[in-house]
């Protein structure tokens, strides 16, 4: 199954101040910027947050800064459609606010993923989900499930690419219905293999962090 490379694109290792910043601060900045975009809707806010995003990417190092433009390869047509529509309906400033605001939010969220280990994200989610324990939900399992979901997205993209290649090789490329069945079967097989791997490591039997005192600092 291809597409795994997309997964590693999630994090770029480094020792920059952004990499070393505590996770809570990264989340705080992300939430604050998101709130600012919603509460103070103006071209100025959008411009400031776009600039802030760029500055933080630059602060995170050259490799992270280089990755800034990566999502534009996939999102450009959505942003273009949105921009043209908004310009037509509400004028150029509205188009800038919507498209720029969306790009700023996406980039700040990406910066969090690019500069944070998945283990730390999963651990933090586990801590935030701790109150769910009172209703019988294991927060560690919730966190692991989200981590697995992140892992599954690129794997599924790889699976779609594999199936599309196989269909193309048999001259079936134009029929999307042909792709649906094998993709679903591959997705189920992937889920089954992942479940087996977790079960075999005993992770599903007790949750990833059950049974030991929490002394994380």
């Amino acid at each position, binding site marked *: 199954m291809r597409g*795994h490379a997309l*997964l590693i694109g999630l994090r770029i290792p480094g020792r920059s101040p952004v990499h070393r910043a505590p996770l809570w601060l990264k989340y705080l900045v992300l939430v604050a910027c998101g709130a600012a975009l919603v509460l103070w809707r103006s071209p100025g806010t959008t411009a400031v947050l776009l600039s802030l995003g760029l500055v933080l990417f630059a602060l995170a190092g050259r490799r992270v800064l280089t990755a800034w433009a990566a999502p534009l390869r996939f999102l450009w047509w959505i942003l273009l459609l949105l921009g043209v529509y908004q310009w037509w309906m509400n004028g150029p400033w509205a188009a800038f606010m919507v498209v720029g605001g969306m790009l700023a939010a996406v980039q700040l969220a990406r910066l969090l993923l690019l500069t944070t*280990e*998945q283990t730390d994200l999963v651990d933090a989610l586990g801590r935030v989900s701790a109150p769910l324990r009172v209703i019988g939900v294991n927060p*560690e399992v919730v966190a692991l499930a989200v981590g697995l979901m992140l892992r599954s997205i690129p794997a599924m993209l790889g699976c779609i690419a594999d199936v599309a290649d196989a269909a193309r090789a048999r001259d079936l490329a134009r029929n999307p219905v042909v792709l649906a069945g094998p993709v679903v079967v591959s997705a189920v097989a992937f889920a089954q*293999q992942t479940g087996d*791997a977790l079960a*075999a*490591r005993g992770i599903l039997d007790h949750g*990833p962090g059950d049974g030991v005192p929490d002394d994380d600092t």
Partner: protein
Amino acid sequence: MISFHEAGVSVPDPAGTGADAVLLEPATLELAEQRIAVIGANGSGKSTLLRLVNGLARPTSGRVTVDGRDTVREVAAVRRRVGFLFSDPLSQLVMPLVREDVELSLKATIRNKARRREAALRHLGTLGLAHLAERSVHDLSGGERQLVALASVLATGQGILVADEPTTLLDLRNNVLLQDTLYGLGQQVVYATHDLDFAARADRALVVDAGRIVHDGDPHEAVDRYRRLALDPQRGRR
């Protein structure tokens, strides 16, 4: 000690005949040797036999125990004793970085993050993989990936390792490297393989054919028996 007590597995016949399809006929075994190989054709029941040991498959008749623990009723206790290595390491490696994946295995026993990280690096170092710690699991060669998967399994400290065709996807060099690593372990290792040289290195070998254990004993005799079975022209025509 792994014990099969008349343990067998059957499933409803996929053809819908109403009868059961036998994946593994009931067998009684005591597996105590340090290195045990399981050989047989594709679909013969090797994987089913191995999965019974870790509780990934449940016997539909009889029972399987590991150190006296039932693999169905005490599955968590069994999995603390039995690690499992799959043929495709990518299906086994869950976290993006090598170190993070080993840390995931340690999470149940070491809660402190710094100590967990130290332990993960130590485990990787034991297999000579410390230099891969910060690499993505997807950037590794097939052999490195399988060794990392092995490190993740061994990190939990089980005394028994079950490996289902661990060398199938590896080239010759990595195949030999993994074999040597497995043979250098202190754990009991039970492995399925199509590599007959690898099987011949074992202390004991089982040959599984159409869900039945047809040979149990000397590995060289097992390999001969399997060769005869696999190359029998009469069987090919059936």
